């Protein structure tokens, strides 16, 4: 390994630091200067410690040390295999090295937790030159964006001494408005994923970056000679102008070169639909907040797809109720399988994916857009919807789903146009994709060329074709015909296996770059940390083939922006951009021209015979198309509707399940929340076969089988490899999203699935209150009918026995159930903020998941067991489950004033603070679990084993230093983010002022895109939380227990269409 070059690399880096050394800081979330210096900070600070832990070996830069280490096979082996990954080893593996290591490490750790034994000798490692603006012990926030498909979510990233630890939404960014989603929240874990590729390799042998540069330049010469014939680039959807410019540059340089794109989970329907409607590719943007009536044609626009976070904000802002006189928007959803959007709907119609088009045609016909189609069985529904849409001309909105075909999108455009919504609730812009193409065509061409041996050099990044390409393309064999494949990816994945070169790609928190959001807004991606390993950005790789290689991303980006913003004081603009996280008013302007399109022009729709099963492919709600497969937080994140973790399953409707006898049953281990035995089915589809576990899903359209994408990966890493089944294996180019002619055969095998909530029935208890807007207007107090809540004044104790000073803050939380659609952002945010460990599938099956906030999913209109109705077991068939109303309820610690848990703790490890917090003191806890038994809400979580990973160095960087890392044998639970409370309180006290409302924001609250969670001081009558609690909808779960929770809920209110009720 040539070390000089690495030194050069480093000096290069260093050089930027110097030249920006003098810049002043603008605000708390200061600009790039600090950001770029942070790396130095972390080299000096954390990694030194990490290295120390790794082994006593002095070095300068982490990655340089790593290079040295990498040559030591033992160490590589250690780093790759021995260290536990996010999921801990199961207990029944026998005593291995790590158990003894645990024994020792544990004793140390416990010295920490228990306060017994002498403290180990610790070193203080100060900076050599402390970065400007960095105050030790104070986190800094930097604005950046996370590129995702045809969107980029604006983020503020919390950094502790140069370690990004927590993702927050950027209020100034149009795609976030302060909210985030689970993917964004979990992205910080990807940064520290120990399975990330750490160096450049050629056929698996380690190469230095310079060696790659040399070979690239050599290749470039050859390519030039052929004008780039045989030079291909395959990417995912790209919205980054910088990256696009680089590619375009190459295409200019090599005229015969080609750029292909492949995004597996999104259909071309959107693009082609726009083409049908407007004659060319256009980007569609919704103004959800302006819509009174929304119809979703199989669109999960609240959870995935461009702008989902923004749309969620806007959508739920229209559903906030301040009193009986306030109004709500209305959402109709037509979909084959329940999504969070569907679960939020006021009216939901389960239809087979193929029937959604029929529905659209029928609706269009009803609205007089020609094409006399009709959908038997749904006329009433369609009539009601049509009427409602008509009634709200100009304030209604029809949204077509990402997985639906061009026709549906075109019809949606047409209907919107016809209803006069265009320009009001929806508008078109130039595509945000740098180069919109038909992805299917694009990859088909590539495969053809590869097969014909026309491809000589292939660069692949941003997509994983070996895993995701339609299996009829047989990408794997064809790629072998390419002489030189360069794979750029964060992990050494399936595609990397088939590539000559693998360039370890930098995480977006490590690189400079840019990206456009769903509405075209341009944002700068600024790094929070220098690359942890010898990684590089895709742009650098492309540049390596250009005529001016080695230009750093930083320079390239600044040059590009300079060019784009000539004239204005660039440095000022630059700092403002970095500070705000967006390039001011860079959003695309709406393009004129309504849809010139009539339903008549459509070819007759192809219909599927009712007796045939329809197989549909959908991105997994947790790990999307597989790109997050190695992210433990997302793997262990209960999927919003099914509540499954660590696996995907072939989802079938209750009827189908009954027909094919696919009922699953709770195991005696964990049971209702834990291990579920589900029958294994053979899916034979398009001349291919895959074996999957079946899962009966209430609310699924009959005859539909959902095959979630993203699982069954073979090279994802320790966490993601060989989980679930690979749906891509039965996915062919002719039927990318909807396939028929397949069969589902039950085998006698059984498979264990981990499910965190099996029972969906409230058993007639006062847990989740819900009603319709009508009911609410009639009786605003409906949530308190048959309330058994005892009067607060009724108590054996004298009032002065309750020591809550009225002039001091009393922390409380209100959760508006009307606004929760179970999107899971809060769950991951909490996990990230509070150092919550991942426990692995086996432990979840034992009922030991650790999430401090869980989201309970309930189906209503299923009478409880006591009144002889449904038992609450989803595998039992009941007509009530064909299309149940679904509700979500986030349950953090309820912070009861009369906390049942406190009374029974023998050591006083959980007691009340003066501000009414139910404090949990880990270091006092001895783990009797009595508190958990006595907690009626079961929000306490116990470290049954050593779930925390104390060895893996990367995770040490990930952790939030503000929160104790719990170890084995200790109870833990939600603390209302007491660390945030303390920090704000301290600042306020220093300024001798009261804490302002909204100054303290809990992790879940700040992550929630729906603003469903509100935290504050209930002693302050003007606080948001007090106002919410003052509403009549406000109620407490199981109030009759008189635990007096500080966390209360606002009854869910839906706004169904009275006409529809009649229908």
């Amino acid at each position, binding site marked *: 390994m040539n070390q000089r070059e690495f030194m050069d690399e480093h000096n290069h880096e260093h050089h930027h630091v110097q030249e920006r050394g003098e810049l002043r800081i603008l605000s708390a979330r200061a600009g790039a200067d600090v950001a770029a210096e942070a790396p130095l900070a972390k080299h*000096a*600070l954390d990694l*030194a410690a990490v290295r120390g832990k790794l082994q006593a070996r002095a070095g*300068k830069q982490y990655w340089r040390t790593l290079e040295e280490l990498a040559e030591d096979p033992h160490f590589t082996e250690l780093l790759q295999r021995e260290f536990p990954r996010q999921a801990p080893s199961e207990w029944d593996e026998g005593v291995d090295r790590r158990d003894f290591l645990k024994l020792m490490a544990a004793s140390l750790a416990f010295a*920490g*937790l228990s*306060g017994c034994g*002498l*403290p180990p*000798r*610790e*070193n*203080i*490692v*100060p*900076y*050599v*030159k*402390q970065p400007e603006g960095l*105050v*030790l*012990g*104070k986190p800094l926030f930097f604005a950046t964006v996370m590129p995702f498909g045809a969107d980029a979510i604006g983020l503020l990233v919390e950094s502790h001494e140069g370690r990004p630890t927590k993702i927050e939404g950027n209020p100034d960014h149009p795609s976030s408005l302060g909210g985030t989603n689970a993917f964004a929240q979990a992205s910080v874990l990807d940064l520290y994923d120990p399975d990330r590729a750490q160096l450049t390799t050629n056929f698996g042998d380690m190469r230095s970056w310079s060696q790659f540069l040399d070979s690239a330049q050599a290749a470039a010469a050859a390519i030039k000679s052929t004008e780039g014939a045989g030079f291909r680039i395959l990417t995912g959807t790209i919205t980054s102008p910088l990256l696009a410019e680089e590619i375009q540059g190459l295409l200019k340089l090599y005229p015969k070169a080609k750029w292909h794109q492949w995004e597996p989970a999104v259909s071309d329907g959107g693009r082609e639909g726009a083409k049908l409607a407007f004659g060319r590719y256009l980007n569609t943007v919704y103004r959800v907040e302006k819509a009174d009536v929304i119809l979703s044609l199989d669109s999960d626009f609240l959870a995935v797809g461009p702008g989902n976070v923004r749309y969620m904000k806007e959508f739920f802002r229209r559903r906030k109720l301040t009193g009986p006189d306030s109004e709500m928007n209305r959402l109709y959803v037509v979909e084959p399988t329940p999504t969070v959007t569907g679960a939020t709907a006021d009216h939901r119609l389960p239809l087979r994916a193929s029937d959604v088009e029929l529905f659209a045609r029928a609706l269009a016909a009803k609205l007089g857009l020609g094409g006399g189609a009709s959908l038997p069985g749904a006329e009433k529904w369609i009539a009601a919807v049509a009427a409602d849409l008509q009634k709200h001309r100009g304030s209604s909105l029809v949204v077509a789903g990402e997985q639906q075909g061009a026709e549906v999108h075109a019809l949606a455009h047409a209907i919107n146009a016809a209803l006069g919504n265009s320009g009001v609730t929806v508008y078109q812009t130039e595509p945000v994709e740098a180069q919109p193409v038909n992805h299917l065509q694009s990859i088909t061409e590539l495969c053809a060329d590869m097969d014909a041996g026309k491809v000589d050099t292939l660069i692949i990044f941003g997509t994983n074709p070996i895993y995701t390409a339609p299996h009829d393309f047989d990408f794997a064999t064809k790629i072998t015909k390419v002489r030189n494949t360069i794979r750029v990816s964060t992990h050494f994945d399936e595609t990397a296996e088939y590539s000559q070169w693998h360039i370890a790609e930098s995480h977006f928190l490590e690189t400079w770059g840019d990206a456009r959001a769903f509405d075209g807004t341009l944002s700068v991606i600024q790094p929070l940390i220098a690359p942890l390993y010898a990684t590089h950005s895709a742009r650098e790789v492309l540049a390596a083939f250009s005529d001016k290689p080695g230009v750093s991303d930083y320079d390239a980006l600044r040059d590009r922006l300079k060019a784009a913003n000539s004239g204005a004081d660039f440095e000022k603009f630059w700092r403002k951009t970095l500070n705000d996280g967006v390039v001011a008013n860079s959003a695309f302007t709406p393009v004129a021209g309504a849809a010139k399109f009539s339903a008549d022009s459509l070819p007759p729709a192809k219909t599927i015979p009712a007796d045939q099963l329809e197989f549909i492919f959908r991105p997994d709600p947790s790990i999307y198309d597989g790109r997050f497969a190695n992210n433990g937080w997302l793997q262990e994140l209960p999927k919003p509707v099914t509540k499954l973790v660590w696996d995907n399953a072939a989802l079938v409707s209750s009827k189908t399940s009954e027909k094919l006898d696919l009922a699953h049953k709770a195991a005696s281990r964990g049971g209702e929340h834990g291990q579920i035995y589900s029958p294994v089915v053979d899916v034979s589809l398009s001349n291919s076969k895959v074996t999957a576990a079946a899962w009966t899903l209430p609310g699924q359209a009959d005859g539909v089988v959902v095959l979630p994408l993203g699982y069954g990966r073979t090279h994802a890493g320790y966490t993601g490899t060989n989980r679930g089944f690979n749906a891509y294996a039965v996915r062919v180019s002719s039927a990318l999203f909807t396939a028929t002619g397949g069969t589902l055969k039950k085998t006698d095998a059984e498979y264990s699935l981990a499910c965190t909530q099996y029972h969906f029935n409230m058993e007639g208890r006062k847990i989740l209150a819900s009603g319709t807007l009508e009911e609410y207007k009639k009786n605003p107090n409906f949530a308190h009918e048959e309330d058994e809540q005892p009067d607060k004044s009724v108590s054996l104790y004298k009032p002065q026995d309750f*020591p809550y*000073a009225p002039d*001091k803050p009393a922390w409380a939380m209100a959760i508006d159930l009307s606004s929760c659609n179970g999107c899971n952002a809060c769950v991951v945010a909490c996990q990230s903020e509070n150092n919550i460990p991942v426990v692995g599938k086996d432990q979840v099956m034992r009922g030991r998941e650790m999430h401090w906030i869980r989201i309970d999913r309930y189906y209503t209109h299923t009478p409880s067991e006591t009144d002889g109705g449904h038992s609450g077991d989803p595998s039992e068939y009941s007509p009530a489950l064909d299309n149940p109303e679904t509700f979500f309820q986030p349950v953090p610690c309820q912070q009861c004033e009369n906390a049942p848990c406190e009374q029974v703790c023998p050591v006083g490890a959980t*007691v*009340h*603070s*003066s*501000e009414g*917090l139910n*404090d949990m*003191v*880990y*270091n*006092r806890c001895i783990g009797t679990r009595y508190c958990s038994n006595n907690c009626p809400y079961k929000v306490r979580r116990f470290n049954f084993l050593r779930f925390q990973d104390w060895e893996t160095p990367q995770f040490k960087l990930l952790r939030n230093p*503000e*929160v*104790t*890392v719990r170890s084995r044998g200790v109870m833990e639970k939600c*603390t209302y983010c*007491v*660390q945030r*409370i*303390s920090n704000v309180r*301290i600042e306020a*006290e*220093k300024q*001798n002022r009261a804490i302002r409302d909204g100054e303290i924001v809990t992790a879940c609250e700040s992550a929630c895109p729906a603003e469903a969670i509100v935290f504050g001081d209930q002693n302050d009558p003007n606080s948001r939380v007090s106002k919410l609690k003052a509403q009549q909808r406000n109620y407490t779960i199981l109030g009759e227990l008189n635990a007096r929770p500080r966390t209360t809920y606002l009854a869910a209110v839906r706004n169904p269409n009275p006409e529809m009720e009649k229908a």
Partner: protein
Amino acid sequence: MFLVCGCIPESFGGHYRVTVDPAKLLIACEEPASAAILVVRGGTIKRNELMPQLFHRSANSAARISILAVVILATLGLTVVFGGVRSPNFTNQYLIRNQPIQFSHKHHVGDDGIDCRYCHTSVEVSATAGIPPTRTCMNCHSVLYNNVGYLAPVRESYSTDTSIQWVKVHRLADYVYFNHSIHVNKGIGCSTCHGQVNQMPLMFQANTLQMQWCLDCHRNPEQNLREKKDIFNMDWKPGPDQAEKGKLLAAQYNIRGVRELTSCSTCHR
């Protein structure tokens, strides 16, 4: 008489051999009748066939002493344990650690009178007081003592851009979240916890840093409150009027009540 006398030795003699009391013997002799009876029914008073006791007489005292010993040892043991965990051996109080550079606070603070905040810059704003970067040392030592041997590590650190690795002296457990700034801002001076640093040639931990010690102040902060100007004054000592002065300051700083200050989440998260 003779008979009587005669029979004395055989029937009594041996018998009285050991303990014979002439007086009693005389009495016995004087009463031939009784003696006769004794003789006639001789042997009914059995000679005491001596059998050795299972335990020697000393066993009695031994038993009592051993009981006493157990009691004493138990008390002693407990005293040692509970005293021990409070002793410097356990708390590392007064323990001087071997540092890469024998930095003297006495010299810098006491003699040169450098303000604490010159090095510990973040003490007023952040949880951590902050250990100065090498650059801070070099501010002076690029000029002063810029070639003395014992400062070589500093220069080396600066030139090679590697941190000086100090050994931690004041170590709180990981689950304790102490915040310097709030204490300094609310009238608790450095020396209250760190002792008179200006008289420490080498740094050591002046207090136990045990929870009990923290509570002593959190339950009664008045005893340690000082005016703003004295916060960084190493020689400050509570005056005779501290009691009422403390109350005034507490009001002025509006220190939170004991209940707030002794809530678990004040220090633990």
